[in-house]
């Protein structure tokens, strides 16, 4: 498991950072669309509550050091209407989360996709909030 972080090209970042995003609040009020991140780890907790679900996961870097992350997902009402539930992801599940880091530098991210090792996406549709797509908006 590893943490990989990529800073996108400045042009893409500037475009994305001005995107309006989340129904609850503006994406750019909290997250940096110029700092995409891909996290692989084990789910330790799931908050299925308004205004957004949160997925907590532990990652390990190359040296074996554990990182604790929390990633914001879509609103539970939207996800429920798409057929997802609090049981769609379980503690102990291995996941890959692609998203964007919080501007404040904490281990907080906005999840644009959550995938199981099988490749199956969980909570698909979070992009409906109008934020950047899984990695970066198309140019």
């Amino acid at each position, binding site marked *: 498991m590893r943490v990989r972080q990529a800073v996108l090209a400045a042009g893409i970042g500037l475009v994305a950072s001005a995107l309006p995003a989340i129904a609850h609040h*503006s994406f750019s*009020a909290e997250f940096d669309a110029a700092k995409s991140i891909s996290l692989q780890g084990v789910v330790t907790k799931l908050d299925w509550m308004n205004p957004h679900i949160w997925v907590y996961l532990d990652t390990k870097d190359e040296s074996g050091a554990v990182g604790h992350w929390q990633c914001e997902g879509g609103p539970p009402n939207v996800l429920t209407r798409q057929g997802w539930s609090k049981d769609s992801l379980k503690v102990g599940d291995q996941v890959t989360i692609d998203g964007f880091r919080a501007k404040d530098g904490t281990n907080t991210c906005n999840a644009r996709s959550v995938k199981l090792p099988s490749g199956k996406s969980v909570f698909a549709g979070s992009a409906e909030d109008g934020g950047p797509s899984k990695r970066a908006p198309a140019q």
Partner: protein
Amino acid sequence: MSIRILSLAANAALLLAVASLGPTVAFGQASRAVSAPAPRTPDGKPDLSGLWQRPYVPDMTKTNKDQSQIGTPELPFTEAGLKAWKSYDPTNGDYTGSCLPFGLMRSMNSPDPIQIMQSPKYVALLYEQNTWFHVIPIDTQHHKGATPTWFGDSVGHWDGDTLVVDTVNFNGRTRLDTIGHPHSDAMHVIERFTRTDPTHIAYEVTIDDPKTFTKQWTNKRTFTLRTDWEIMEYSCEENNKDLYEGHIKAPPLP
């Protein structure tokens, strides 16, 4: 790079992002018009009742690919309006992140459904977003001297088969949409609801705000009846970690 240029770039990117979402979620049932007359209430008015799915409108200048939302591409800003738009930075505090009331327009622009309830004297809009509501008295006058509010003071009347809602007396603490288009406390909003067939409402809103815009402008969209949905509870304060943990700022008090 100026915010204006950023905004233009963002608009282009947003169009791409919206286009990439596909029709399955937001407008899954929006395109099938039913060729039957719209239902009516016992008093003969068009019946707007029901739970309505609406296109998410994070930017009122945009037009959706499927025409379910038609915006005004270039807003006619006054000098003060342009200054308010260019200086907006949500990093300094987007009030909705604090679960403060979205206000009328941002509630109408939210992606969650609304339930409309109707009687001869009142029409009530129940917003799933944050479980808010707004009551529109029919055939009355605006309150005089009332304290300005987030949702404003609305009165409605029927113009033929269209419900016209006229709203004034806003507190000026809200934004029109998620991207943050501004308005002032002088805003006057005119909304028109027309149930065009059993499963659709044509919605048109006119923004009249002489402090912010040199002339009126409009935005149109289509609401779709969802008999397979029920309105759900939405408590914004329930787990607002963004604010509680300091990842976002609360907006300054006026």
